[in-house]
């Protein structure tokens, strides 16, 4: 979109703000009933007797069965029509179509906040009144460029008692061009692993040893200087001859960070990474594990172990040494 097109689009789209989604309160097709509650509880693995056990409920503080509060929004949903002939038009559908027709066809529910003020009982009628409450300025997220819109709904019963409210936030965005809508087979859903270190001529031997449980340190065969990370020449005497020693993995923490954002698939959080000074005199970067971040401090003694961290990755991991 050119800036002019964006401006014209926004002028129109913001007119949806404040519009009601339905004409007047919309009543659920079915009043609160034990059949729908039972089915919902069965699938969700919900064993709460307050929803399904008549005898228990009569003796409880409430004295009667209630509907699961998290079902609040289920009662007023459209039914099978949505799948068979498409969602019937309402204020929200109109706005969504407007977004779609301008390329913002991606849809992603991002937040739902519900508050509950009274519990619904079997036999209650549920009414929903909803409005398009807000549309954000244009945002760029990992999904693409788009707008967040938020709806606000009030749920009441036949006596006009407010049961609860809901804010529903949706991101409408321009979907990135899909490469042939890659149909992955769910049977081969791959569990992600850590990003592997590429192995080249100058470092393969190090990672191969790591795979066998050993952390090596390169040593100049001419002057004896240790070096890490490995490189083909000694910076002290310029010799290209070298051998290795195996590290004891006794170390001391020189600095560290805790990774929060972005989170990478294949990594386990909390995720601590440290610069560790090894007893041999070189440093190594590795995870600090087996302790709470609040107990981690620069200077603490660590002991490394070479461990399998996922299906494909073997790495040194450093644990605190207790005294």
């Amino acid at each position, binding site marked *: 979109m050119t800036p002019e097109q964006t401006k014209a689009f926004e002028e129109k789209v913001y007119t949806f703000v404040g519009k009601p989604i339905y004409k007047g309160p919309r009543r659920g097709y079915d009043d609160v009933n034990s059949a729908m509650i039972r089915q919902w509880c069965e699938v969700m693995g919900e064993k709460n007797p307050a929803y399904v056990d008549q005898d228990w409920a009569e003796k409880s503080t409430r004295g009667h069965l209630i509907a699961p509060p998290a079902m609040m929004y289920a009662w007023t949903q459209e039914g099978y029509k949505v799948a068979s002939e498409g969602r019937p038009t309402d204020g929200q559908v109109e706005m969504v179509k407007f977004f779609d027709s301008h390329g913002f066809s991606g849809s992603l529910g991002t937040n739902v906040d519900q508050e509950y003020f009274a519990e619904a009982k079997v036999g209650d009628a549920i009414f929903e009144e909803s409005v398009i409450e807000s549309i954000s300025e244009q945002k760029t997220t990992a999904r693409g*460029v788009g707008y967040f819109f938020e709806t606000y709904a009030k749920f009441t019963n036949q006596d006009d008692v407010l049961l609860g409210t809901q804010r529903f936030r949706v991101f409408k965005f321009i979907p990135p061009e899909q490469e042939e809508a890659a149909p992955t087979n769910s049977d081969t859903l791959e569990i992600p692993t850590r990003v592997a270190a590429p192995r080249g001529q100058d470092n393969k031997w190090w990672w191969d040893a790591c795979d066998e449980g050993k952390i090596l340190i390169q040593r100049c065969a001419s002057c004896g200087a240790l070096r890490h990370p490995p490189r083909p020449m000694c910076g002290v005497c310029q010799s290209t001859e070298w051998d290795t020693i195996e590290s004891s993995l006794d170390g001391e923490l*020189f600095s560290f960070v*805790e990774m929060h954002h972005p989170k990478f698939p294949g990594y386990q959080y909390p995720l601590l*990474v440290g610069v560790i000074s090894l007893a041999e005199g070189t440093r190594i970067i590795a*995870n600090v594990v087996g302790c709470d971040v609040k107990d981690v401090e620069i200077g603490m003694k660590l002991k490394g172990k070479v461990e399998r961290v996922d299906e494909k990755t073997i790495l040194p991991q450093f644990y605190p040494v207790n005294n």
Partner: protein
Amino acid sequence: MTINVSGEAAIAGVANTEFSKNSGVSELELASVAVRDAIADAGLKPSDVDGMTTFTLDNTDEIEIARAVGIGDLTFYSRVPHGGGAATGLVHQAVMAVATGMAEVVVCYRALNGRSGHRYSSGVAGPLLTSDAIHWGWYTPYGLMTPASWVAMYTQRYMHLAEDVQDAMFEIAHVQRQYAAKNPAAFFYQRPFDRADYDASRPIVSPFKMLDCCMETDGGSAVVVTTAERAKDLKHPAVIVKGVAQAAAADMESMTSFYRPEIARIPSMDIAAKMAYEQSGLCADDIDAAVIYDAFTPIVLWQLESWGFCDLLEAPKFVLDGALRSDGRLPTNTHGGQLSEAYIHGVNGIVEATRLVRGQSVNQPAKEVNNVLVTSGVGVPTGGALLGRSD
């Protein structure tokens, strides 16, 4: 014979494009607009340009821009590696070219769709095909793979050695946002924040919060460098390049120099500072204002130490005394910096430094500004330049 480039070249024109989250145009267009406007700001014509410099990281070819803008024959072109570390390196190349007669008018540029296109904060995970893949391989398996994480590692160490670091980080973020709030070109124009907002902002990599990190931006910046002689008769008073230097200190890795005896400092910038001061005959006391590379808040602290505004580990105190504010000892990043104006890898900083010398900053300090420091990105090989009025 040794040539001292000090005073040989001047910045005659500067320009930024609009900064946004989604420019809606190509990087070639951003670069062409920035270059065209910088040439016009100098009062020159595209056909006057005979040299161009940019980042190795830049996606747009010099000759493509030259054709687009109507620049004629080129006799000098050069690219500087190491990401944001290249910023003042562009000026460094241009100054050497005009001082030696290789070219007379050199445009330095950087343009990127840094927000809507590739985002640097997404890290170096994914297929790594570059020659430094093996280098990153020492860090990625452990999860250390974003710029924030590498810089946070130095920061944690600095916090271990110095006092009041987090307060100073807030002060830097806060002062710059105050400047940006008054800069209509800034991303965060009219959007100040307070300490509560800072404390509540999302943790990125401890000890960094979101407000310690710069904001990826779409945009472009360009500056025109020519001989001091030619700059005399152009539209604006010449902004003389009094000193300029690049440096990569020993035992360096790109962003991950964790193997030096101490890591809570920037030895490459120490070298660049020493060289630039020597060339110019200036010292820290002569510098009136600064534009210090600020992809993350604490890197400002270490650079203040490198350039001798305070002693090692004393930068938090210097900053907390209000030095970076408009009425302080060293008004710094008066455009809002990369934290709050835009993240054009430091080239928008050269534009601002030039404006400070001209007296044209949107937040021009009340005091007289004769000499201004501007620096490049750190953690990588880096550099800096000292700009000033002609004597």
